[in-house]
């Protein structure tokens, strides 16, 4: 393998990795606060992608407007999901909320099958995106660079919110102890709703870019990226935002590079993440940046 192909693969890995990272952030934030695997997150990702393309093709909206509306709309769906399916179960055993989230995931997926139809659809891309620019022997599609850059911007914005604003303070407080935060006057439900909103917006952004990168839409498109992003979050240490980012990028690299170096294994690519997950959980159950959790007696 020469340097050019390696750079090409590295760029692809970075793109894929940052897409995983954006989804993983949603998982990690919700898990950090509610200790809930939000299975519906992968459907939020899918909805984000669909909304923008319906906006562009059916409503003939300009791209930026369609993207903004789609993100806003998807964030709204995320908040609704929390309100309808998780909030009534806050005091219930955690497993109830988990089952509820599986139900919501199936519900959204099947609503998408009903309304958008199960057949995969080709995605129409703006023309400038089809023009690769060429550096030496490396062909780079604009989106390959655009995705990591935008992801970094979004993550910086998120870190600002979490570490510099009052809402962020609330999130961090709730993730330590939800009951005490409530007693201390943190508007728990509002902060959780905002968390879902932000997580869903990032998943929508990822879904849109995913559809531009791998131009196909289908109602089940969220499932595999969703699982992998969750694994990235576990790998990085669930509850930690930089953990999710690092985990996502590493997962992207492992996936692309394994296929690049061992083409015979290409058929197994969807299994790498799960193998990695099991290995990581065996060696370091709390992930790279995860805090140690003691069993409470």
């Amino acid at each position, binding site marked *: 393998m020469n340097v050019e192909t390696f750079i090409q693969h590295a760029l692809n890995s970075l793109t894929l990795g940052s897409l995983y990272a954006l989804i993983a952030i949603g998982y990690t934030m919700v898990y950090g606060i509610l*200790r809930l*695997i939000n299975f519906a997150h992968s459907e939020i990702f899918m909805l984000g992608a669909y909304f923008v393309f319906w906006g562009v093709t059916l409503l003939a909206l300009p791209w930026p407007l369609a993207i903004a509306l789609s993100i806003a709309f998807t964030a709204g769906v995320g908040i609704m999901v929390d309100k309808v*399916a998780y909030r*009534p*179960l806050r005091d*219930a055993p*955690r*497993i*109830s909320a*988990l*089952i*509820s989230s*599986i*139900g*919501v*995931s*199936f*519900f959204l*997926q*099947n*609503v998408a*099958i*009903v309304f958008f*139809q*199960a057949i995969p659809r080709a995605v129409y891309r703006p023309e400038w995106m089809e023009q690769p620019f060429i550096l030496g022997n490396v062909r780079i599609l604009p989106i390959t660079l655009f995705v990591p850059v935008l992801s970094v911007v979004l993550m910086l914005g998120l870190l600002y919110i979490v570490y510099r604003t009052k809402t962020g303070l609330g999130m961090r407080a709730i993730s330590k102890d939800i009951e005490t935060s409530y007693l201390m006057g943190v508007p728990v439900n509002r902060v959780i709703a905002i968390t879902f909103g932000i997580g869903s917006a990032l998943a929508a952004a990822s879904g849109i870019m995913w559809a531009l990168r791998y131009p196909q839409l289908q109602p089940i498109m969220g*499932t595999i990226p969703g*699982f992998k992003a*969750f*694994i990235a979050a*576990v790998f990085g240490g669930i509850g930690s935002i930089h953990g999710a980012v690092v985990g996502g990028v590493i997962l992207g690299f492992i996936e692309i590079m394994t296929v690049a170096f061992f083409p015979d294994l290409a*058929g*197994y690519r*969807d*299994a790498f*993440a*799960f*193998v990695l*997950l*099991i290995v990581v*959980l*065996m060696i370091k*159950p709390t992930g790279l940046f995860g805090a140690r959790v003691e*069993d409470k*007696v």
Partner: protein
Amino acid sequence: MNKSAIFLLNIAAVSVLGLFLWWAEGSLDGYKIQILNLIAVNIILALSLNLIYGFTGMFSLGHAGFMAIGAYVCSILILTPDQKDTMYILGGAYEWVQNAQAPFLAAVVAGGLVAAVFGFIVGFPLLRLGDDYLGIATLGFAEIVRVVATNVSGITNGSLGLKGIPAHANLWWNFGWCLVTLYVIVRLLKCNTGSVLKAIRDDEIAAKAMGVNVFRYKLLSFTVGSFFAGIGGALLASLVTTIDPKMFLFTLTFNVLMIVVTGGLGSLTGSVLAGVGITVLLEWLRVVENPISLGSFEVAGIPGMRMVVFSLALIVIILFRREGLMGMREFSWARLLGKKGER
């Protein structure tokens, strides 16, 4: 009530079931018989998941994986070498796959045993994990099984799957296995092991403090659960006569989970009742997916609507009736016959 009376009542119940099946076989049409068969298979699956999740508290989402293993093992064993010759067009089957043959009963048991071995092997590393992580890791296991099944075409014929599997699984086989499953799991739960499993479910740390070897019991429960999941998969394969890796998506696990949660986590009676109810509902809901003709009008069916209604039902159940149909209560003859103070 004394033991012999309960024994007689049980015998009577089984005979009634037998009479019903005999009547059904003679007078119901093929579609209804197929639904009855599915009911039996779904009950087996629900009972096995309930043992793992409802009675031992291990959140496992890997049922489809164990079912896939059982289904493939059984199908390979009951397909004739001639059939395999014509079917494995992706480079042919391995020699031992090509020549493997067994009667149906042995094939089903083999499916269960191989699934149990896999349950034991993956249980070893995974069962140390806490509930959510266990869920996602077992889900990962099921996905890995599916990916492997798609790629090892010498054994599984890859994504083309296996067709023309002999349809040995009739009412008698399916309900027979259903009774065996029920019997084994009831026996297991009634003896000391059952109490230990429930203790682990209710408070693992306390159980450990009492000197229970938690890991060993979890592994036992997981292995037995995997065994019956494999049996269920094997019967399902012979029932639908066609399998391919796509059949064993997460949706399949979801259906079983739905039955267990609806019936009540930790209630075998609930699993049986919900197994009947949900299987019938799932079929009946096909109505919304088929075109409906009202006089001369034709209302187009809505593909996918069935699962929309279904997932909505699961959400509603978990929101408003968290403990499911039966909670943790079980059927008993004494209660049915109104004898108070006895169990």
